[in-house]
């Protein structure tokens, strides 16, 4: 049995043991900005260094060089700050964040920005499947393509994709907006409860209960505002898709609501 105070072996996302999981303290800090090279660091070391800078050093602007597509980088950041990943992230990058503005100059793997609460993530390259799964707030901007099931189970926030999106985009979307400037695959908005999906390109097929929506000025305002904020140029013409509200029984009250009415 390990003695009290003895260091326990921990594991990173690749299953490698990291008995020495202290922050490496290698960042160069100057005037509130920090930079460090992640090439030879493990996932855990990178995240520990990031946290040390943001939470202990009070740095609000961090550049991480050579992230090398490692998994689970930049997760669980719960403070207002700027983070720039100069390169690509692997799976689960920038998940569970609340507040930061993150710029990824490369691509992100599957499940980036999962369960994001607020903040901004801008990805210059492509993104894998399940981007912004269960997003609750904030903006995710992908300048390349995204894979399948973008914003699956989304509960808020906005996802803007300049390229194409794969199948089942907006699957079970509950709230929030998805903007796709390119084409989308089969099953757009399948089983969505609510929320809005805008598509400028071709829609291969609509999912169950996803129907064309009526365009109004709030749609114009939303699209124009987001394109202006993120300097995405002139927005193309979009089609709007919403939930037909036939799949689920929306007229029935929840048991708790029924009690209140009764």
């Amino acid at each position: 049995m390990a003695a009290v105070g003895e260091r326990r072996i921990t594991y990173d996302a690749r299953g490698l043991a990291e008995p020495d999981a202290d922050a490496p303290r290698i960042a160069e800090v100057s005037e509130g900005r920090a930079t460090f090279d992640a090439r030879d660091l493990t996932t855990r070391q990178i995240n520990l260094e990031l946290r040390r800078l943001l939470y202990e050093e009070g740095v609000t602007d961090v550049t991480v060089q050579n992230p090398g597509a490692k998994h689970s980088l930049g997760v669980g950041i719960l403070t207002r700050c700027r983070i720039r990943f100069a390169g690509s992230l692997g799976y689960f990058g920038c998940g569970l964040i609340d507040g930061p503005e993150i710029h990824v100059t490369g691509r992100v793997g599957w499940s980036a920005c999962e369960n994001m609460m607020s903040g901004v993530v801008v990805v210059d390259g492509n993104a894998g499947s399940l981007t912004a799964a269960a997003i609750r707030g904030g903006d995710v901007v992908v300048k390349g393509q995204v894979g399948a099931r973008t914003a699956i189970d989304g509960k808020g926030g906005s996802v803007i994709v300049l390229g194409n999106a794969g199948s089942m985009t907006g699957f079970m979307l509950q709230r929030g907006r998805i903007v796709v400037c390119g084409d989308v695959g089969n099953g757009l908005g399948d089983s969505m409860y609510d929320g809005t999906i805008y598509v400028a390109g071709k829609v291969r097929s609509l999912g169950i209960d996803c129907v064309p929506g009526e365009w109004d000025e709030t749609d114009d305002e939303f699209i124009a505002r987001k394109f202006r904020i993120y300097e995405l140029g002139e927005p193309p013409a979009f089609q709007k898709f919403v939930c037909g509200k036939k799949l689920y029984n929306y007229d029935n009250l929840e048991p708790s609501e029924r009690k209140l009415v009764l």
Partner: protein
Amino acid sequence: MCGIAGIIYRDDSRDIGRDMTRMLQSMKHRGPDSTGYALYGASNGDGRIVMRYTLADANTPRDFDFEERLQRHQRQVIDRLRGLGARLHDVEAETEYAYRVTFDLPNGTLKDLADRIEDIPDAEVLSLGHSLEIVKDLGDAESVADQYGLDDFQGTHAIGHVRMATESDVDISGAHPYWAYPFTDVAVVHNGQLTNYFQWKRRLERSGHRFQSECDSEIIAVYLAEKMEGGASLEDAMRDSLDELDGVFTYIAVTDDALGVAKDEMAAKPLVLYESDDLVALASEEIAIRAIVDREIDTYDPYESEVLVWQR
């Protein structure tokens, strides 16, 4: 979960064994049970055939008769090869139970040869062809590469697999890649599950094909082989598989001069792809591609129902 990888050099032979080891080792977390390679060596142009086979595996009980049995079965393999008219060149014991033989076969068919070898107790032909060599064993990529000396393997293209066993046992038979018996130089690695496995297995067995394992992934190799036997190209056979194989899958198939990838209609299993003038590399995770390309690169995910094939 499993991890798959593929690499094809368009211009020349490279250290394909070392590269594939790096890719697979970086995805060790996706499957710690076994690691497998299908490596395509530089063509020797002399028509020589390479056969890799095993006579036991790491799980085989080491009883008192184990050594004697192994030697007896190995003698039987050599005798049968000679009996079938094969002119042997090299016979190498790669490990305690895995062998590599090169030979010429002036007459006779490779299917008959494979059947005769596998008729020997415990013998399993892993691959048979002019350039394909399948190596698979229990453990991670570095331990398998070290065991079989793969760092020095020169070749043009390769696929690999790290396995997390879900549908069948942890043994060499359940490890990928699968050779498309009885077709030379065709192999497959797969990440996913096939739900109409038994239906296809029965159908293919009725057509005379045999299966080495209980693993659903082997269906894909044999399925493609049968299609190609009927005249279909690799690409056409892979496209047909999208409609005829049920389940979730991303698989990579290779022949002696091509490498292809197919994703099912749900795109439920990942694949990241990098393409340059001299190299195509693909893997379940980008981190595997980064293991051999040490610079910032643009990668993308193929979409659902997509089939991509590259020729050398």
